[in-house]
């Protein structure tokens, strides 16, 4: 399966992913600059903030919801934490928009 990262300037990168990885893990292991992931995926730092508009996604947990209040770039209804979105098989082709800043 593949997911597509969309940079703030509109450029796109399609990346082949292994099922079960998180968006944050895919980004940091593929040199996607727009995601930092300072806490390594422990839902603590809010530096893997992304925007996704896709009905296939599961809804926010309370923890993710609280952390999204602290993102560097403004939160919208499409805001998610990349470390909390696990790439299950049904998310093939997911489009992930990157914010301009994470800190």
């Amino acid at each position: 399966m593949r997911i597509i990262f969309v940079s703030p300037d509109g450029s796109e990168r399609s990346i082949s992913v292994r099922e079960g990885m998180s968006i944050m893990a895919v980004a940091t292991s593929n040199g996607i600059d727009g995601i930092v992931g300072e806490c390594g995926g422990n839902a603590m730092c809010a530096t893997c903030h992304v925007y996704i508009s896709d009905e296939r996604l599961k809804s926010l947990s309370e923890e993710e919801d609280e952390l999204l209040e602290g993102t560097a770039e403004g939160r919208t209804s499409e805001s998610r934490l990349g470390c909390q979105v696990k790439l299950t098989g049904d998310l093939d082709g997911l489009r992930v928009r990157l914010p301009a800043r994470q800190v």
Partner: protein
Amino acid sequence: MTVPQEQPATEGRRGNGGALPVSDFDPFSIEFFKDPFPIHEELRECGPLFYLSRYGIYGVARYEQVHQVLMDWQTFCSSRGVGLADFAKEKPWRPPSLVLEKDPPEHDRARKILSKVLSPVTVKKLRESFEASAERTVDALLVRGRFDGIGDLAEAYPMSVFPDAVGLGAEGREHLLPYAGLAFNAFGPPNELRDQAIAKATPHVAYVTEQCRRENLAGAGFGAEVHAAVDAGQITSEEAVLLVRSLLTAGIDTTVNGIGAALYCLARFDDQWEALRSEPQLARNAFEEGIRFESPVQTFFRTTTRAAEVGGHVIPEGSKVLMFLGAANRDGRKWERPEHYDIRRVTSGHVGFGAGIHMCVGQLVARLEGELILSALARKVKRIRITGEPVRAFNNTLRGLRSLPMEIE
């Protein structure tokens, strides 16, 4: 020093991983602390799990196994102590921490309060005042030119911001670093470091215990926010005192050693200092990479709640397992060119702050301090030079320097 040797497996230590490497090497010796890296390498290469016969404990030094132990709190618990002492058999030297030395569900209730007090939202609000203090610190050092990079910078900066952020009174702050040093020494065996720290503990413990009480904390700050959870019915006032104690134990010495680590790296790796000067926005990652490279918190223990499989071996229930965080952070299986300090490295996943449910709750405050002081240096300082022999500080858990004579211009 003896490094792990393959030894015929004895009963209870046999698994499909073959013979378990056994060593009588002392991971709490001054000799090891002086230069842990060659031993780290041998520990990683001897196998995914080894047995340290001197203390009757198991050890992991590869990234994969250290991460495994950190993440599996059900099997590798913290409530029996994260030092050598097993709280199931020995009385702890102080009342256990409500976060560090507890397991879920008890742990989660207390942790939630600290996470909120130290959340990204709260930490953002500190940026402006912390930044002003970082600028002042560097400006003053530029006037002096020559100074001690540890006492005058790595200690002075956190001491200028963190105690105020907690809401501590002006008196007695000199007890903070000795108290933290004591707490981190106490995780080790009853060696000279631990015994001496405990022998001198009384005034430091008295200060911290007193400072953690609500009436002694400022009306605004981390301390007051923890106590506000009492009003909300989330914790008792006794628990609030212990949670504030966690802030004082883990919030300063660690950051001091983190900043000291990054500074020592930047003073040694000229190309990285130049890279930081040309792109000061790399300051945050320069700090993070310093944490990976030096690992200010070198080790922590867990205790097995049941027989556990690690690297093809079986660890019996009730065993102490020592995680070499510093070794995991330089494991070539995980990191490319691990022995290079590289401020452009993707550092995500290092275990310098731990991982899993006990991962450092104050990491955002630490990063803020690290970023701001390095950024101020990068923008204001042209050259940075070590002018004398750095002196190492020895602690059973923490790695850092006692002094770093240096010059800036």
